[in-house]
């Protein structure tokens, strides 16, 4: 159960760098994310589009980076000792 569903926050095994200023708000990443940890912002970027934001529970699977047409995501996986 994810945090959005009212469950406890899940541990993140990875994280992202999100270039929100490049995003055109297509939301393909939100649908593609297996752990469902991406949500769209309430703010808009300079072009006037909402952009994705990360909540806890990222696994570093790179699905968002694979489907993104605007190359908004850079994906990091935490090294095990750091967890």
């Amino acid at each position, binding site marked *: 159960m994810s*945090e*959005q569903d009212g469950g406890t*926050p899940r541990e*993140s095994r*990875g*994280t*992202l*760098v*999100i*270039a929100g200023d*490049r995003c*055109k*708000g*297509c*939301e*393909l990443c*939100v*649908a*593609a994310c297996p752990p469902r940890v991406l*949500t769209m912002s309430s703010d808009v970027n300079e072009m006037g*589009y909402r952009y994705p*934001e*990360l*909540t*806890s529970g*990222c696994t*570093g*699977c*790179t*699905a968002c*980076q*694979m*489907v*993104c*047409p*605007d*190359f*908004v*995501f*850079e*994906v*990091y*996986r*935490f*090294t095990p*000792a*750091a967890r």
Partner: protein
Amino acid sequence: MSVIDTSQPPSQPAKKVAEFSSPLLLGEHSLCPGCGEPVALRLLLEVLQELDIVQRTIGVVGHGCYGSFVRIMDVDVLQCLHGRAPSCATGIKRVRPDRAVFTMQGDGDMVNEGLQEVLHTAARGEKITCVLLNNGVFGDTGGQLTATTVLGQRTKTSLEGRDAEAHGHPIPVADLVAGLPGTAYVARGTVATAGSVAQTKRMLRRAFEAQLSGAGFSLVEILTMCPTGWFVPAPDGPGYLADSMEQAYPLGELTT
């Protein structure tokens, strides 16, 4: 619900597992939100890098939305008349057989305007790789019906949906090419989901390997989303593609 800071790389030890895009892309593109073509182009550039052939690759492109990539791709590119890319690529490959030559064409370009070019090139067994970005509409000119628009699909010039009686049947060009003896590798993929993106990248890699080994002509058809031309919201693009185009054009490798 707490939002994690994603403005910079993490401070704790972590391994970068995916870059924003290929380092061969030198700028930003101007394609619509939810378009599938940038993903297909990123895969193509990644394959060129992984095979270490960037410095000896010549791309030949037709006319379409992907033309905006010509300016930002760090690869030698020749832009041809509509549909003529396979013939120009033939010339380049015959003069410089040491070069890896690919064409990048949309469905309007390859199937409407230049169908005979690609069929003859395949039949001659030219050692080039053709990439077809198939979205079923003339995206660049405003979303008109093309020869690959599937039956029932709405476009600017078929608002009630494509009707076989009025507009004819769609042409599955990858299947036509797969039936020709000069062809070494033909596959059809899509960029709608993360899994299919990974699969499509493997197809592109095999297509270039077929060219580099001298096996013959190779073609990869990539079904891409065009939410603007399909009149659907950008998030619904992959679902629409799965329900319409994927039904008419089954995915997978068409040669053995």
